[in-house]
């Protein structure tokens, strides 16, 4: 069993950013000309890991106006293939440009033997996997010089022989490595439906301290199973689970991921306002230590 419990590179836990959106090219113009009521943006890191041109120019403009976090899809932290240090250096180079509040990727693997399947593939929740992944998280945090933030993924298959639940695995990983968690509410919902566990049990099994971000998204409901497609509006069940998540974790930076059938920016902002209202409602009833949630002013100027 992995014995290394070295702390991550020193960094204080990122604060509450408010309510954000995934930055999508369809919305560039409206964002840059309209100053929408969005508190921050999350970028897909790989979309900007390009040599130059307009994508990086636009990114620079967004970063001048809004707090930004980086969200990757290719770190493959759970792969048994060697860590790709060139990729990690490219992430670090982008981080120097963006100055993100945090850097996240997924608790998954994307390929082995030099092949990338460009999917977020599931892992068995075993001590073997935990030892392996914890060691890699330490290495990544050394390269990035900051704690990594890891997201729970949606899954469609689960492995018969496991040593622990997904939430126990995530908890132990954060304890061993000091990494943060991006708690994807929709992914918990999707996996709970597919595998038949109680999402509230998952939620209550995650420690409060490491959670720095929530994801909200839509999915495709096939009755017997659910697919995490990010191409629908967020359903009521996911918003209800979000309410429970805010009750447990408090004021956590929240954003909506929309990757396909992308509606106009105003529609996604309206959906974000629903999350804002839920959080405000919960925090009003549980006001002990959380930062008040305020609607972001539309006339934010550069800081």
């Amino acid at each position, binding site marked *: 069993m992995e014995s290394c419990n070295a702390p991550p590179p020193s960094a204080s836990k990122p604060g509450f950013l408010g309510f954000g959106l995934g930055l999508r090219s369809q919305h560039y113009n409206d964002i840059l000309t309209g100053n929408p009521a969005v508190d921050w943006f999350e970028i897909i890191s790989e979309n900007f890991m390009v040599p130059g*041109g307009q994508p990086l120019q636009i990114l620079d403009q967004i970063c001048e106006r809004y707090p930004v976090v980086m969200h990757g899809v290719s770190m493959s932290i759970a792969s048994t293939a060697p860590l790709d240090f060139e990729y990690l250096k490219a992430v670090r180079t982008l981080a120097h440009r963006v100055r993100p509040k945090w850097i996240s990727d997924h608790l998954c693997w994307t390929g082995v033997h030099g*092949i990338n399947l460009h999917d977020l593939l599931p892992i068995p929740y075993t001590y073997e996997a935990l030892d392996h992944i914890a060691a890699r998280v330490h290495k990544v945090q050394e390269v990035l010089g900051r704690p990594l933030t890891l997201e729970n993924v949606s899954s469609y298959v689960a492995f018969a022989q496991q040593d622990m639940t997904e939430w126990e695995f995530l908890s132990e990983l954060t304890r061993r490595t000091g990494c943060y968690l991006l708690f994807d509410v929709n992914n918990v919902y999707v996996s709970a439906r597919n595998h038949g566990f109680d999402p509230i049990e998952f939620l209550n099994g995650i420690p409060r301290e490491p959670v720095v971000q929530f994801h909200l998204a839509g999915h495709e409901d096939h009755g017997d199973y659910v697919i995490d497609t990010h191409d629908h509006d967020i359903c009521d069940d996911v918003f209800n689970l979000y309410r429970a998540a805010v009750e447990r974790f408090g004021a956590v930076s929240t954003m909506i991921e929309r990757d396909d059938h992308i509606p106009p920016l105003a529609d996604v902002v309206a959906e974000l306002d629903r999350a804002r209202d839920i959080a405000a409602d919960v925090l009003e009833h549980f006001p002990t230590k959380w930062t008040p949630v305020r609607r972001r002013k539309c006339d934010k100027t550069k800081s």
Partner: protein
Amino acid sequence: MMANLAALQHQMQSVILRRTATAQHGGSTTSYQVPRDDLLSQLRPPAHAQTDAMLDIYCNAYRSRLAEVLEADLANLSAYLGKALFEHAAAGYIEAHPSDRQNVRWFSRNMPDFLAATAPFSNWPQMAEVARIELALADAFDSANAETFSLAMLTSISPDDWATLMVVPHPSVRRIDALTNALDIWIAIDAGTEPPQAKRLNSPQHLIVWREATTPRIRVMSIDEATAFDAAQPASTFADVVAAMTSFEDQREAAKAAVGFLAGWAAAGMLACVDTDAANSHPKQETPA
């Protein structure tokens, strides 16, 4: 018995790729399908659906995701081929070229070579060339930044310095020699009009793709201009560019033509300033804003 993590990942990837494996039996090699049942036996039954169907979600998503990438990167090629033929090309490409890059941005890059080498697409060489044009424009769009060598800079060069002037193409520049009327086809498709009948050209059409400010451009070059430009890649002195223009019997005429080409390239933003700090003649990076 649960396979270890490495074996499990190998197994799952093989099932998703629908790869065959090979086994040695004495002196012979046998190919066999990686047993899907072996993986299925290690999976826990889902809440309501069939395990097999749930595993298929990964297999199908792998192909549909990469097909979407190809469709997005090669939208004009897709429009030219039509839905069925493009899907056929995409399916063949996905099986033949699994992604080997962390960033899916470069997944499509081998499609022109695939189309040129794989029947039935190889029977219609304009398809590979349309793909090559489309990907060159995409590459120009997000290629490296460099300080452009402007026409004003060119005109400020003193006559004594012309021979040693370094000619450095901008990093966004791509050169293509097309053997078909692929450019006319691409332009028609891009404009949403009926493409012309495909035809082989009597002589290659020399194309140059580059980025002007943030916009990718493409235009045709004469053989003399293309010869001069190719001599300048990746970097060359003006004197060497002129020396490469052997179709001119008189070097003074060649130099005169080269000056005209150079002025056109500089005006269009096809040239980069030289990084004098670098050991070799590299394009000078733009100073970040």
